[in-house]
């Protein structure tokens, strides 16, 4: 009897492992192994013709911490994240609430909001290049109409990062709106009616009922927005290339530069590992802390 039960249990375990193995193999080959290999190569010095690569321990990391550009880039990226994450989530929520209400041309509004998401980032960046270009650009044309001087939005350190931030928000908000729209449609109509009978204002209903019920979606979007704030750098290549004087340089762009413009793979690897570590910690905090305060239906 017990032997039979043990056999059955073992069979279940094997079955489970078999189901998990395809994903496990893929992740190992394309995620875990590369991460480990990156970590390993970050511990070696750069290979040159005169000097072969050798084990240097944490020297690459020490170099980075001593590099003022690295700290500037980190600072840029933190600022970029601190603005793009809350603003794009806020705009997405506002757009979703509006596009979910009973308005004329609702389908059109939804499509219009979603369009930036469909555009490839490179195309979007080219579009915005047309807005930002001094003299010829749409922004300057409008400014000139009101008698304002021409501004080189992308060409001066004070405005370059902001210009990049605005493109990112424009691109992300519509995408996040779709998630909010889907979540809003799962909130039953009669909750609104029950609140109406109690005399709940629209604002109170949104704040006390809708936003709490959207928390699982917000959590998901926040993690995505955070990853995007590190990942989404395509537009830098078109708009500023990180300049002027590194004012709009983000960390992933710096890694790319390090690896493929300066051919300094070990430092790029070290930086990658640092990002990975930070992202893991932040994601863990978000899930562990916010999960407890989130209601799942």
């Amino acid at each position: 009897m017990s032997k039979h039960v043990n056999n059955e249990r073992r069979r279940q375990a094997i079955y489970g492992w078999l189901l998990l193995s395809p994903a496990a193999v893929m992740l190992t080959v394309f995620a875990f192994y590369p991460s480990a290999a990156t970590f390993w190569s970050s511990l070696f010095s750069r290979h040159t013709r005169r000097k072969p690569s050798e084990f240097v321990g944490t020297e690459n990391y020490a170099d980075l911490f001593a590099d003022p550009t690295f700290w500037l880039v980190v600072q840029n990226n933190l600022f970029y994240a601190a603005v793009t994450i809350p603003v794009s989530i806020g705009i997405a929520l506002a757009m979703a609430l509006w596009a979910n209400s009973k308005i004329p041309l609702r389908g059109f509004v939804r499509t219009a909001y979603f369009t930036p998401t469909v555009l490839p980032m490179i195309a979007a960046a080219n579009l915005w290049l047309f807005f930002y270009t001094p003299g010829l650009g749409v922004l300057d044309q409008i400014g000139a109409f009101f008698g304002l001087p021409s501004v080189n939005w992308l060409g001066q350190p004070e405005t370059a990062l902001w210009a990049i931030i605005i493109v990112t928000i424009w691109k992300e908000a519509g995408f996040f709106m779709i998630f909010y729209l889907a979540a809003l449609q799962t909130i039953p109509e009669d909750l609104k009616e029950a609140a109406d009978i109690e005399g709940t204002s629209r604002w109170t209903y949104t704040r006390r009922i809708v936003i709490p019920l959207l928390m699982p979606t917000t959590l998901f979007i926040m993690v995505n927005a955070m990853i995007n704030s590190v990942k989404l750098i395509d537009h830098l290549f078109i708009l500023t290339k990180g300049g002027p004087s590194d004012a709009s340089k983000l960390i992933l762009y710096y890694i790319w530069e390090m690896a493929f413009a300066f051919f300094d793979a070990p430092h790029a690897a070290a930086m990658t590992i640092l990002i990975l570590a930070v992202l893991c910690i932040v994601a863990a905090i978000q899930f562990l802390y916010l999960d407890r305060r989130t209601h799942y239906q």
Partner: protein
Amino acid sequence: MTGEAFVELKDVAKRWNGQLGVENISLEIEQGSFVALLGPSGCGKSTSLRLLAGLELPDEGSIWIDGRDVTTSAASDRNLSMVFQSYALFPHLSVAENVVFGLKVRRVPRAERNEKLGNALKITGLEGLEDRKPSELSGGQRQRVALARAIVAGQKLCLMDEPLSNLDAKLRASVRKDIKKLQRDLGITVVYVTHDQTEAMSMADKVVLMKDGRIQQIGSPDDLYNRPANTFVAEFVGAPPMALLDFHVLDGLQECQTLGLRAEKITIVPFGTGRLSCTVSEAEFLGSETLIGLEHDGVVGLTVLQPGLAMLAEGERIDITFNDEDLHMFNEVGERIDRH
């Protein structure tokens, strides 16, 4: 203006894209009474309730509550509470938060809020469950939270939209009693929508039977059962429903179109001595009695009740008899003809 009617609907109509919603709804409800809106699905009973609640606005007619014309008022200005079919509990809020939600919105001070909360929870027997989320409650408990939320504000009028339809049969019977007791103890006026005639008949002081957006009959349960206004009411109310006979089937009766007869007024008599000879079409054992379905030309829904287990074979022929005074008479459009 209307004297004693607490709630009054006057010629209310609501249509959707020209299609019929409800038409010609006129209804007076006395304070402290229990009124059931009864009817098959799609008959407009829920629409009538939503019009009363202010969740829909009528196309025609006027609605008065407590002497005020509230035809176009917002739901919150009508001083009423509502229990929804799905309960409409806020899933992320605890039982206590759900119950006091409306009080909070209306800025009732905390001390008063807590007192009312304690009271409402006591009445509905939810003490000890204050901190549970709706998902951690059983169906019956959720239903009681919805009730507690409706009574906590102390409104004089409470609307209920099929509040028991998500409960199992046994629970339904007990909650039915609880709601009725609650209504009496608090002295509130309840308008109760249901498709279940047992609920309507057992709880209501006044039943409003609807069909296709129109009121068929307004009356006490006794009126509806014993003096149905038309053949629809006759066939809808009662289990088993009233049998309808073409008047040609019987001889020696005054001119009318249709005759109605309740199952319990029929007796089976020895073959050859009855007024009608029929064929048994089915027999259903109900425990305390057996329901026997009978067939005869020109007769619909003829059944007879026999005490205890009294199964009859299908196709068997039996004779039945009944008294003339137990016959209900309806004219050619199906309306009741009163006997003098």
